[in-house]
């Protein structure tokens, strides 16, 4: 599709490095949080967001001028950015916080992202991010960001398309009763749900692509801009205080019986009586 004289699209994809979803979570002995000395990876919903951005470029070609990824996290979060770059993003921004700093909260993240957006030469037309992070399941950042920016928002998206000429995003969002089709003026914030890109007649989810070797090699050369919260004038001090973290009560196991007679005996033991015929 030939790019018009109008501005080309700049996409921003915020991503988060979380505990990998396959890890068995354990609460730390102080009951202040979970054991984080485990495998981390990119938040699965953010992976889908990156994948959606790359697919948009595959469809719209030169109309997509840039795909930039951004993360707020400790030094190790740069791995997450490299993964996104290997999937097809052009450049990255790392807002680095110390390893020991408390995890940022949605409002803080939203404010930081707003500051990032305002710094971008050429502006940002579309922000695609995961609907929630799987470590805190807050699901608020996208919505807060849209409100702070005063831009449109379409959350829990299962299908995303752009009309560059009209400068709108067509989004199908998941709602309780089914799906809702929205048309949002750009700039817009879209949060991706699991079934983003899902064809209603097939069973496949949007599967984020593997990072191929040539892309991994290219990703090493792509720029990562390093900033601190102070650089963008944002205070990430938490406003919420975590009082206690505990595991849910353990399920008491059932018992296995060898045959019907034993089952009846156990039921009787537990006080069940037969219904009279």
């Amino acid at each position, binding site marked *: 599709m030939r790019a018009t004289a109008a501005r080309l699209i700049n996409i921003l994809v915020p991503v988060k490095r979380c505990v990998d979803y*396959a890890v068995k979570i354990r609460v730390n002995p102080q009951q202040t949080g979970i054991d984080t000395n485990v495998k981390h990876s990119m938040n699965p919903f953010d992976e889908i967001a990156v994948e959606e951005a790359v697919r948009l470029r595959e469809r719209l070609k030169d109309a997509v001028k840039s795909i930039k990824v951004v993360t707020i996290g400790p030094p190790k979060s740069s791995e997450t950015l490299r993964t996104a770059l290997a999937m097809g993003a052009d450049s990255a921004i790392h807002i680095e916080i110390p390893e020991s700093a408390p995890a940022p909260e949605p409002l803080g993240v939203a404010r930081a992202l707003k500051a990032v957006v305002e710094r971008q030469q050429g502006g940002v037309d579309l922000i695609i991010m995961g609907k929630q992070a799987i470590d805190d399941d807050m699901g608020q950042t996208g919505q807060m960001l849209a409100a702070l920016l005063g831009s449109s928002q379409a959350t829990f998206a299962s299908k995303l398309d752009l009309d560059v000429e009209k400068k709108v995003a067509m989004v199908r969002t998941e709602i309780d009763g089914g799906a809702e089709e929205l048309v949002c003026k750009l700039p817009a914030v879209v949060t991706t749900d699991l079934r983003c890109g899902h064809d209603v007649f097939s069973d496949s989810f949007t599967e984020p692509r*593997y*990072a191929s*070797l*040539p892309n991994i090699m290219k990703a090493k050369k792509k720029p990562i801009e390093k900033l601190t919260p102070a650089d963008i004038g944002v205070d990430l001090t938490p406003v919420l205080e975590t009082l206690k973290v505990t595991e849910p009560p353990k399920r008491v196991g059932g018992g296995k019986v060898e045959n019907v007679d034993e089952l009846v005996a156990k039921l009787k033991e537990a006080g069940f009586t037969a219904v009279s015929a």
Partner: protein
Amino acid sequence: MWTARTAARRLVLSPRRWQHTTSRQPLSSVTPEDIAHFAKILPRNAILSTLPPSALPSSEIEQYNNDWMGKYHGSATTVLRPQTTQQVSEIMKWCYERRIGVVPQGGNTGLVGGSVPVKDELILNLGNMSKVRSFDPVSGALVADAGCILESLSEYIAPHNHIMPLDLGAKGSCQIGGNVATNAGGLRLLRYGSLHGTVLGLEVVLPDGTILDNLTTIRKDNTGKPTSGYDLKQLFIGAEGTLGIITGVSILTPPAPQATNNIILALPRFENVLPLFKTARLHLSEILSAFEFIDREAYELAVKHGQGRALGEDEVEGAQCFVLLETSGGKKEHDEEKLTTLLESLMDAEDPLIITGVLSQSPTQFASLWRLREGITEAVSKEGKAYKYDISVPLASFKDVVDTTREHLRKNGLLHADAVKQVIGYGHVGDGNLHLNIVAAAYTPEIEAALEPFVYELVASYNGSISAEHGLGAMKAHAIHYSKSDVAVDMMKRIKQLLDPRGIMNPGKVLEV
């Protein structure tokens, strides 16, 4: 008990009757009197029999009588599921007296018909003996009942940061006793070595019921050194249940690697596999933990049947075969540096050995890439009936063996949709072990006649082994002389005669007597 597993087994409509050519001392069949005796040793629910008094329909014991592939069918009337070694011993004492043939059975995932009866032998299933006896987190020595499922053992020791020294696609169903009895190799052999090295001790019930307990000395001795005198356990490792029943296993489990990575590489030509292996070994040295070969057809089959997510179209274009490589090491950054150096040297080379590759970025992708390899066996089963040849031949000849076999079948007019649909190859490059699979629409005598002894002779021409890791079972009991000398086979028969003079222990398997 009718289970979902039974429903999942696809039974051949006209079951191929197992033609056994072995001759043996006359063995007795199980009678109701035997059942009555077993009822004194075992609780009622541990005896499954079509004989009175329980008189179950034979469909209830079908899953025990049929192997995983649906190729081998036994006609046992009775399955026993003991819970203790003492029970196993008393069962064997009785069977020895009565000259009843016994088939020890674990997860029944074997691929050479070794775990089902040839006729109506008694099936002794170890599935109910599934307790972990002890684990020493310092040495990693794990002592477990033979009926423990391999994956369960992995999960048991995982919180202690240890892993099992072996891994295979059947891990969710196969049992450690069966693994040891078949000297299973698997995906980690390259790194951790064979069971002959990692098993510290065994508890075995001999054909006459005697319990040989080699576990106790090892528990006191925790160093893993074999006891003095003859190292008896080695006899039972790989004997496929023909010398005795393994009831307990003591095995050394290595510490879990702190960092694992895997990568699938697409190769333009098969000839690149060997140089690629050498390069990988050079750059990765001690962190290389698996190196698997997958030919193009095997990869397509795995993808077709949904085993793991496929690579991108542009990634596989022009690839003749694939290699799955895994690294396991102590430090993530160190491993990544080695891997990056290897990948850069591969991509930047003047005449690159690879077209491209994908590197897993998360545990999910790691599992998905592995699935593409581990799922081939299942994909083959979904595609048709498999003739499996687990052979050791020089790496450079892997492709030739597959192509020669395919050509041979074509010449015999058997390469078409109603006979042999596909001939594929995949395997453990590092161990020189190729799994040659002929996927057929059905098991037929014509196909078998075309394949055997053709494949065995082909392997012998390379001075290879006809059974690298799957065992001989019933499938290759007649073919051992392709890989072992007459002197060796004679010695094996003498040992068999010594330990099992009445020939009741898994008759018809491994050796022809």
